[in-house]
C-alpha cells in the first residue's frame, strides 16, 4: 500500500484504513466524524484535519503506525493538511507573510508614529498620543477582523452548510464548551499523549494559561478603553481593574507560551509537521514578548525607560495583531468552526 506524496491524497489513504479499523473512535471527535462518511473529498479532509487537536493518541495506539507497511500517521498528515488549508482560506491569498517581518514592521511603525516626542515618567500619551494609538490599533483591528471573517466564511462555505446552521444556540453552546475546555486534549480526563506517549495534562494546561491569559489581556484593554471614555486616563493604579486583569493575563501569557515552547522542544517529532515550527514558535514568541514588555512597562512606568518600553510594547502588540490572520492564531478559528460542524453533524445523527 503506497504512501501518497500529496497530503490530501495521503489523508484519504489513511481515512480508508481508519474507517475499516475504528479502534480509535473513543478518543476524540475526529473518528466519529470520519465514520459519518464513506468517501473523503478534499473538503472532508480539510474539515477533519482542522477538527484534529494533534494529541497523537491515535498514533501511539495504532497497530498500523510505522514501521508497519501501512504507515498510518494521522496527526502528522493532518498537520500538513491543516497548514495547506490555512493558506487556502487566508484572505488575501498571500498566506506566507513571515511573522518576523510583521513584528519588525510593527516596531518601526510605532516608532515612527511616536516620533521623537519625549515624555515624563508614566505619561504614556506623551510618548504617543491617544488619538494616534487608537486610530492605528482600530484600523489594524478592523482589518484583521475582516480577514478572519473572510477565512471563516471560506472554511464554512467549503463544508456546504448554510450560515444559519452555524448560528444555532444549542450547537454553538456545546461546541464552545468543547473548545473552551479543550475536551479533545483531555482523552477521558487523563490528558493527551504529548510531548510523548505517556498521558499528561501539561499541554492542555499551558494552552489554558495562554488562551485565558490572552482573554484577560483583551478584557483589560477593553475596560481601560471604557475608563478612558469617561475621562479616567491611564496609567491606572496597581489595584485597578485594568491593571489586575492585565497582570493576571500577562502572567498567563508568560507561563503558557513558555510552557508550550518547552513541550515543543521535548515532543516526539514523528507526529508533527516540523515545517510549521517557525509559524508556531513565532506566535508563541510574540505572545510571550507582548506579555513581557507589558509587565516590564507596568513595573518600570515611573522610570525614564518608559518611553522606549512603551514603543517596544506597542510595536510587539502591533506585530502580533498584524500576524494573527497569517499565523498560528487561525487554528483557533478553524478548529472552533470545525467543532461547531461536528456538533451539528452529531446532532443530526441522533434524529
Amino acid at each position, binding site marked *: 500500500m503506497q504512501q501518497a506524496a500529496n497530503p490530501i491524497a495521503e489523508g484519504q489513504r489513511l481515512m*480508508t484504513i481508519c*474507517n475499516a*479499523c*475504528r*479502534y480509535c473512535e*473513543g478518543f476524540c471527535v475526529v473518528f466519529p466524524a470520519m*465514520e459519518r462518511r*464513506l468517501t473523503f473529498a478534499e473538503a472532508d479532509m480539510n474539515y477533519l484535519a482542522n477538527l484534529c487537536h494533534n494529541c497523537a493518541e491515535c498514533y501511539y*495506539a495504532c497497530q498500523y503506525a510505522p514501521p508497519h507497511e501501512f504507515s498510518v500517521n494521522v496527526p502528522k498528515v493532518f498537520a500538513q493538511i491543516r497548514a495547506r488549508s490555512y493558506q487556502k482560506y487566508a484572505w488575501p491569498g498571500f498566506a506566507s507573510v513571515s511573522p518576523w517581518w510583521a513584528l519588525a514592521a510593527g516596531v518601526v511603525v510605532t516608532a515612527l508614529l511616536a516620533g521623537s516626542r519625549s515624555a515624563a515618567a508614566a505619561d504614556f500619551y506623551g510618548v504617543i498620543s491617544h488619538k494616534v494609538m487608537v486610530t492605528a490599533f482600530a484600523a489594524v483591528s478592523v482589518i484583521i477582523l475582516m480577514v478572519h471573517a473572510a477565512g471563516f466564511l471560506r472554511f464554512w462555505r467549503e463544508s456546504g452548510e448554510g450560515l444559519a446552521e452555524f448560528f444555532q444556540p444549542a450547537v454553538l453552546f456545546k461546541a464552545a464548551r468543547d473548545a473552551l475546555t479543550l475536551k479533545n486534549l483531555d482523552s477521558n480526563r487523563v490528558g493527551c499523549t504529548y510531548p510523548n506517549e505517556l498521558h499528561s495534562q501539561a499541554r492542555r494546561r499551558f494552552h489554558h494559561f495562554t488562551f485565558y491569559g490572552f482573554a484577560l489581556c483583551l478584557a483589560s484593554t477593553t475596560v481601560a478603553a471604557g475608563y478612558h471614555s469617561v475621562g479616567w486616563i491611564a496609567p491606572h493604579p496597581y489595584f485597578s481593574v485594568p491593571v489586575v486583569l492585565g497582570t493576571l493575563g500577562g502572567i498567563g501569557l508568560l507561563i503558557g507560551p513558555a510552557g508550550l515552547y518547552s513541550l515543543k522542544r521535548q515532543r516526539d517529532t514523528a507526529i508533527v509537521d516540523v515545517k510549521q515550527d517557525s509559524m508556531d514558535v513565532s506566535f508563541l514568541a510574540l505572545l510571550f514578548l507582548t506579555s513581557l514588555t507589558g509587565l516590564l512597562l507596568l513595573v518600570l512606568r515611573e522610570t525614564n525607560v518608559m518611553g522606549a518600553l512603551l514603543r517596544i510594547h506597542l510595536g510587539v502588540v502591533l506585530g502580533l495583531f498584524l500576524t494573527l490572520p497569517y499565523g498560528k492564531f487561525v487554528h483557533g478559528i478553524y478548529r472552533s468552526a470545525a467543532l461547531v460542524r461536528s456538533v451539528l453533524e452529531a446532532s443530526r445523527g441522533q434524529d
Partner: protein
Amino acid sequence: MVGGGNAALCAALVARESGVSVMVLESAPAEYRGGNSRHTRNMRCMHEASTEVLTDAYAEDEYFDDLLRVTEGETTKQLARLVIRDSLRAAAWMKSYGVRFQPSLGGTLHLGRTNAFFLGGGKALMNAYYAAAQHRGIRVHYNAEVTELHIRDGKFESGRMQLNGQPTEFRARAMVAASGGFESNLEWLEAVWGEAARNFLIRGTPYNKGKLLKLLMDQGVESVGDPRQCHAVAIDGRAPKFDGGIVTRLDCLPLGIVVNKEAERFYDEGEDLWPKRYAIWGRLVAQQADQIAYSIIDSKVIGRFIPSVFPPIAAPGIAELAAKLGLPAQKLEATVREFNRAVQPGSFDHQVLDDCRTEGLIVSKSHWAQAIDKPPFYGYPLRPGITFTYLGVKVNERAEVQGLGSGTNIFAAGEIMAGNVIGKGYLAGLGMTIGSVFGRIAGKEAARAAGR
C-alpha cells in the same frame, strides 16, 4: 516472563506486586511489542448487572453455555469456569494499571453486552501495561528470543536467548511461558497443513513462531489441542502476509455470493448471523482449490457493511467483473443467473435472520438472498487469514505446566495454553480473557515459586 503480550504483562505486573524481581523477554522489537494483543480490541466479561461499559447482565452460566456450544464440549470445564468467574475481577485489575475501557465500538458484532472494549484497542492496552511495568522497575528486553531451556527435575534453571542477535544466558527462579502460538511459523504451518498453508495469510504478529512451545514440548511438557485447529477467517486476499489485522476483514460475505476459482458457489452464505459464522469461512476458503475464493456483491448492499481497507474490484457487468477477478466469465454469469432465478421473494433485513432465501439450488442460501442484478458489480478476493493456533501446553488451575511432575516452577498463560479452554471454535474476546485471568494466576504462582 517469556512473551510480551497481555498475558505476559499481566503475569509480570502481578508478580511484581509480590516484590520479586521480574524480567520480560519480548522477541519483537519495541515498536511491534505485544504479540497479537496489539491487534485485539475487547475481552469477554461475565457480569451480574450492567457496568460502565457493559450492558445488561451476562451471567456465569450463560457464558459457560456459550463456550460449551462453540467448543462442542472440547474444553476443560474446571479451567473454563475459573476464567469466566475471574473475568470481571481481571478487568477491574487491568483498570488499576491504567488500562481504559469504553462501550462497544460502532459497527461491532453486537458485543456491547458481553465484551468490554479497550479504549483505543489492544496496542493502547499494551502501552498502558508497559508504562506501568517501567514505572514499577520491571526490566523489559526487546529482540529477546529464547532458544534453549535448561530444566532439571522438572524445574527451570536457566535458558539461552538471542538478545539483539547476541547469544545470552538468563536465569530465574521461576518462568512464565506466555509467548503465543505458532501461527506465524510458516514451516510449522506447512508441516501441519501441507502446501495449502503457503496461501494462508497471518492476521497478526510475525513473531509468534511457537519456539518456546516447541522447546517445552521437547522437554516433556504435555500438549493440548489439535495442531490443525486454528481460528481462521476469510480476509481480503490482497492483505499483507503478516499483521494485516482488523482492516483486512470482510463482512460482506452474507450480503452476496461466494464463489471459488471455478466460479462455483460452495457454501450457504446466509446460514446464520454473521457473528456466528464469520469464523468458519477461513477453513471453507482453505478447502477450495488454490485456497482462494471471491465475494461477489452488487450496488444494493454498498453501505451495509464496514468497508475493507482495499477498494472492491468493480465492473459494470458480471462478465467484465469475472475478467478483472480472473474467473471464467461464462461460468460466473451462469452461477449468478442460476442464483438470481432461485431467489424467493422476501423482505430483506441484514440485521436479523430474514426470509430472503433461495429455492432449488444444490448449495442454497438460507437468508439475505437477493438477486445480484444492480450494477456496478463488485468483487473481493478472499484468502484464509489465520488469527491464532490452538495447540498449546497443558496446565492446571494454578497455571502449572503438566508433565514435569509436581512442584514445577514453569507456568503458562495466554495463547500458549488457551487450548485448555477452547479446544475448537471461538468466542469473540475470550482469548484476552484467558490471557488476563491466567496471566494473573501465573504471575502470582511464579512469584510464590520464586520465593520458595
